[in-house]
């Protein structure tokens, strides 16, 4: 019962959302399913990318380079799959690239104490430059991503087909949220990570190897960015183009802030973004209101600005996010 008491508001909101979803489902089943399906496919890369941000910042490293990590991974995943003819190889190559780019950010910011924001932006520019140079038109994936049905869960009406039926990366996103949620708040690793992100010198005094933990977390977070990139080029679509990620890495940071650096809340925030975009697209397509197409596409960006303007002052980032750790230099 302690869990219920501690999360009273959250649970009430979740319950209200679920009830509202089923009411809508009862009123118009097809529309609700397609809207929720759109929202989730919009949210998957954002959830994964927001988790990258959460892992980094909970351990004290701001990751502005998620965009570049996703772009690089999407590129490698797509071309590895297209050239080798193996979807599995593509997915692994994409996640490996994410890991590599995570390690890059980790080493520059944690080991060499480069300014974290500048390191991230440099990572973005480098990823953009390399992917646009090596990009070649005319490649296709060998097959479409196989769809997996989770036994039992996928037969839940409305939610089952949306969340528990799909490609490996969308299912991975759900698993990742749960694992990181549990890991951050209920394991020794999580306690140490949060300590390192809030007060590295206290953690250091208590015997935690701050530098090692930060290197580890930021590098492993790259794996999730790799999954987000591979999802975009292999699962959500079967293509890659220059500038393919279109700012999603930055939307993810806004979602991370909106979700108060919490994996579960970040997932809800990402779904909210997806629902709003889906609703706007639906309104425009059905000609209910006459909004120019350009403005519909802008909605996620404007929403980000509004959400940040409202939320940024209300939530508190991990205290040491953005500050390099110098042992003994409290």
């Amino acid at each position, binding site marked *: 019962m302690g869990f219920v008491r501690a999360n009273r508001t959250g649970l009430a909101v979740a319950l209200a959302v679920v009830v509202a979803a089923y009411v809508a489902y009862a009123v118009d089943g097809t529309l609700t399913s397609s809207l929720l399906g759109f929202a989730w496919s919009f949210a998957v890369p954002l959830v994964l990318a927001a988790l990258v941000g959460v892992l980094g910042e909970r351990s004290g490293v701001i990751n502005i380079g998620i965009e570049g990590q996703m772009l690089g991974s999407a590129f490698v995943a797509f071309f590895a799959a297209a050239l080798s003819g193996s979807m599995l190889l593509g997915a692994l190559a994409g996640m490996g690239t994410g890991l590599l780019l995570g390690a890059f950010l980790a080493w520059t910011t944690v080991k060499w104490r480069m300014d974290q*924001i500048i390191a991230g932006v440099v990572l973005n520019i480098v990823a953009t430059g390399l992917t646009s140079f090596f990009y070649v038109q005319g490649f296709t994936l060998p097959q479409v991503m196989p769809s997996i049905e989770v036994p039992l869960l996928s037969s839940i009406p409305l939610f089952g087909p949306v969340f528990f039926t799909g490609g490996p990366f969308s299912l991975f996103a759900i698993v990742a949220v749960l694992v990181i949620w549990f890991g951050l708040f209920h394991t020794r690793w999580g306690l140490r990570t949060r300590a390192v992100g809030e007060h590295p010198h206290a953690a250091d005094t208590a015997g935690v190897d701050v530098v090692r933990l930060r290197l580890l977390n930021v590098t492993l977070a790259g794996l999730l960015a790799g999954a987000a990139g591979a999802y975009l080029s292999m699962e959500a679509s079967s293509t890659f183009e220059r500038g393919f990620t279109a700012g999603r890495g*930055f939307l993810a940071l806004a979602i991370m802030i909106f979700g108060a650096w919490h994996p579960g809340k970040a997932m809800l925030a990402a779904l909210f973004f997806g629902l709003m975009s889906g609703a706007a697209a639906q309104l425009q397509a059905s000609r209910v209101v006459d909004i120019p197409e350009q*403005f519909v*596409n802008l909605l996620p960006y404007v929403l980000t600005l509004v959400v940040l*303007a409202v939320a*940024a002052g209300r939530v508190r980032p991990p205290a040491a996010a953005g500050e*390099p750790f110098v042992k003994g230099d409290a």
Partner: protein
Amino acid sequence: MNDTSTTDRPGPSPAGPPREQGATSPENRRGVLDVLARFQGVLVPIVALLVAFAIGAALIRLQGVNPAFAYTTLFRDALLTESGLLRTLQKATPLILSGLAVVIGLRVGLFNIGAQGQLLWGAIGAAYVGVHLAGAPAVVILPAALLAGIACGAVWAGIAGLLKAYRGVHEVISTIMLNSVAAGVIDWLVSFPLKEPGQSIPRSSAIDPAAELSNLGFVPVGFVVALALAGLIAWILRRTTAGFRFDTVGANRDAAHYAGIRIPLVVTAAMCASGALAGLGGAIETLGVVGRYETGSSAGLGFDGITIALLARANPLATIPAALLVGVLRSGAAGLQFETGIQPEVVDVLLAVTLLLVSIPVLARVLFGRRARDGVSLTSGWGS
């Protein structure tokens, strides 16, 4: 590039004084290194550039083209013909300005990566005035169009400035979002209300000839303006109270606060100034090069500004050589593609590698060991 005295800040880990080298190091080698280390602000970018060109050569080789031929083609095309030189300087002009825009931000600890959007607003603002004040004499329409560009850029950046100063929204996120919003809104503007009548592609009508910025031989007027502004900003930052306030806020917010500097005001003002410079870059692009607003005509200029500012280590005067370098590469890339079929994006690789080597502190440490100074200026974290 006399950047050493102005860009050094008391960071969290100031480079220590030259320490004793090991006994194996000969006396004269130490002397040479000491002298070279004093010019590392210039040397590190040059070495980085050489490494980048070597990597670029390997990529060009892989595509079956002789690298020496490719590079000669690129530089000949950008520098050795009068039209090429004009084009290079035309390219360098908005690059100097967007580089300066990013530099101004960095000096206050703000990382304005939204120069792109601000530049687009400057371009469309100038185009609007250039079209709608048609018939007015040049002394009216030209300054009005330039001012419109400046104002549009400043207002757009000011949104990010206000969000940062009063709501704690990090400028990196807000400016990148504003970039997308600007691109979308402007695309709509030139697709509908400001579209050239009877045209199928989204673009504005041509500006009045009186609003055009001319060229003096192979030197565009805009280029001269950009050079003058680089000098002016260097002077403002080094010699005026406003510049001192900017640098103080950038170096140490707490100290600035205790000194009675109103930080929200300085942050907003710096963002507006930054946007004004980028907007002017866009306006000059419209009035001096394109002659109208066309979707896609200024693509990437603002993002190159980030590269330029970081290469210049936040020094306004150093943006000039950095922007010229990028201008030469971008201008020569078209000829390179024409003659050898190599994609112009090879320039992106060259710049990315250079930027990487200049900004991560490893190259300087390899070259100069303990004499290496830490890289560029510092930005701020969330909500501060």
